[in-house]
């Protein structure tokens, strides 16, 4: 097991190196010279030379790449250009609010998705099944923007059931007061695609021989669904949920922006608006690293759920 993990981590190195080079090329060659952006409108030659020296832009490219790698390894990206706040501090403080929304959202979404998928898959082909699938397709076609705008206007602004936006100091206040509506909207948006996907996972299982055998020996349908089918359908579900966690961290950026939640996603949007390159670079590199680590975790959980899987 340890050998497997070590080998997987070793295999991540070329990919990670690729991500670093890709980000480096994007920001250093495609993106143009950030000096003029930083120097402002009234820049003289001395100020520009000064900034270039500070950023290391006057050094050859391999020195600059070295600086970038050093920044990644030491978790020290310097200060954000727009606010002067240390980038590591930005990431550390924005992670909490993001997780406050994302963890309950993921747990609820997965639970509801599994329950509905099992229910729908067992009446497959029926009118209910087809109606639910059509509703899913229509629900997925409406832009997430429309969900957010309409729900925020209707439930928060008009009916006053939730605060329109904001974020507090205490975890429970945030979770129960400010995060409730974003979580509800996140659910409304994500249940349809999740249900469609999980339904296909369950459908792959219900046709299997072991389900027929379980029925033949007289097991109640409830036990077949919740014990036999669920355990087998859980394998692709776990892979899907785990592998998508890091992407979710960014994916909730619209929710965070509309509801004023100081999370990672909103920080990315702000950084793009302000051309705050150190923040974007840091978040991109670390999210990529997290994606790879979570893929490994997914594979490890795979084996925990299914003893037939041999990690070699």
């Amino acid at each position, binding site marked *: 097991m340890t050998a497997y993990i070590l080998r997987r981590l070793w295999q991540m190195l070329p990919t990670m190196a690729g991500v670093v080079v890709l980000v480096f090329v994007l920001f250093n060659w495609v993106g143009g010279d950030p000096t003029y952006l930083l120097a402002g409108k009234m820049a003289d030659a001395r100020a520009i030379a000064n900034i270039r020296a500070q950023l290391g832009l006057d050094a050859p490219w391999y020195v600059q790449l070295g600086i970038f790698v050093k920044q990644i390894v030491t978790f020290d990206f310097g200060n954000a250009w727009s606010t002067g706040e240390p980038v590591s501090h930005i990431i550390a403080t924005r992670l909490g609010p993001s997780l406050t929304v994302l963890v309950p959202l993921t747990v609820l979404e997965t639970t509801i998705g599994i329950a509905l998928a099992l229910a729908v898959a067992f009446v497959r082909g029926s009118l209910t099944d087809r109606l639910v699938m059509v509703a899913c397709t229509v629900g997925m076609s409406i832009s997430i923007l429309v969900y957010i705008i*309409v729900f925020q206007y209707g439930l928060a602004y008009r009916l006053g059931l939730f605060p329109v936006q904001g974020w507090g100091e205490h975890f429970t206040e945030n979770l129960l007061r400010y995060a409730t509506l974003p979580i509800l909207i996140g659910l409304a948006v994500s249940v349809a695609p999740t249900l469609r996907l999980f339904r296909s996972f369950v459908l792959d299982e219900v046709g299997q021989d072991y389900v027929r055998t379980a029925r033949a020996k007289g097991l109640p349908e409830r036990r077949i669904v919740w014990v036999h089918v669920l355990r087998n359908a859980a394998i692709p579900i776990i892979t899907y949920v785990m592998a998508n966690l890091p992407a979710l961290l960014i994916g909730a950026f619209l929710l965070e922006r509309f509801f004023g939640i100081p999370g990672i996603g909103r920080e990315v949007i702000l950084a793009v608006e302000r051309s705050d390159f150190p923040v974007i670079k840091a*978040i991109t590199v670390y999210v990529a690293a997290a994606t790879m680590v979570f893929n490994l975790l997914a594979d490890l959980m795979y084996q925990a759920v299914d003893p037939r899987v041999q990690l070699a």
Partner: protein
Amino acid sequence: MTGPGLHHPAVSPGLWTLAWRRLRADRVAMAALGVVCLFLLSVVLSATGLVAADWEDEVAVNYAPPTFVGPDPLLAALAQPQAPAPPNAFDPLAGDIAVLKAQLARRGQAGHTVKRTTLPFGADKWGHDVVRKTIKGGQTSIVVGLVAAFVAVALGTLFGALSGFYGGRVDDFFNWFYSVFTAIPSILMILTVAAVLQTRGVATIVLILGLTGWTGPYRLIRAEYIKHKAREYVLAADAIGASSRRKMFVHIFPNVSHVALVQVSILVVGFIKAEVILSFLGFGVPVGVVSWGSMLNEAQNELILGKWWQLTAAATAMALLVTAFSLFADALRDALDPKLK
């Protein structure tokens, strides 16, 4: 496309003929195709200037409500041509304005046209007709989605063909490239590229979406090429001395093109949604170009004033197109790849 197979049983129907027959038997798919074609027709008509070319005319009062709601009495008062203001002896521009008004009158344009108080589906902040604006916005969003999907699939096909056909080092290189691109979540990738490319414009969004979306098609096309390169018809082509390029794109590609087509139809849906979000955030279309995303951006503030029509128009048009397109893409996949069912 009905194919000669129906009349000459000796000729067996090809993949496309069979797929078209399957598709035609599917009533939902044909209805979806009809809706998609209507949208594409509106894109063509508005791109050639036959429809909605004058969407920027301020034909109605600001926020004129839809006709079925009835005119807003407060706004209707604004629609009447106002009595000219009494001459102000201290107005330094009075002379210039008088000259300009005389010029306008000579060209036959009245200074004050009567603005309409209602429109079929209302007007926006400046009195633009929402229906025409939605058609124009749809043109931008759909064209961006289509072109970007073709760019992404072309890139994915090229990389997948090289990777699957040559194998070995080339395959390793492209697989590494693929794992690098998939390590970064697509939305983060899109935002990063948007941050780096400072210029905003329709071409920029197409580039962003196209350059980041090739990974899905790449994986599928690569698998197809690996499967096909050992088949007899490729070996036969090899025996008569066909070059690698010829084998890849003249012999194999027609046999895997259905995979590419299904990928285009799937990506179009995702890219239209992505364009709307990018434009909404202001990283998409430039000021002065209307798209469904920029309409939703305006509509967000209008909703608080109770002006719901622009939001409804853009959201409905988009939902209709995306529903039809995804139903059609599903049916197309089933028709072209019956094994998947």
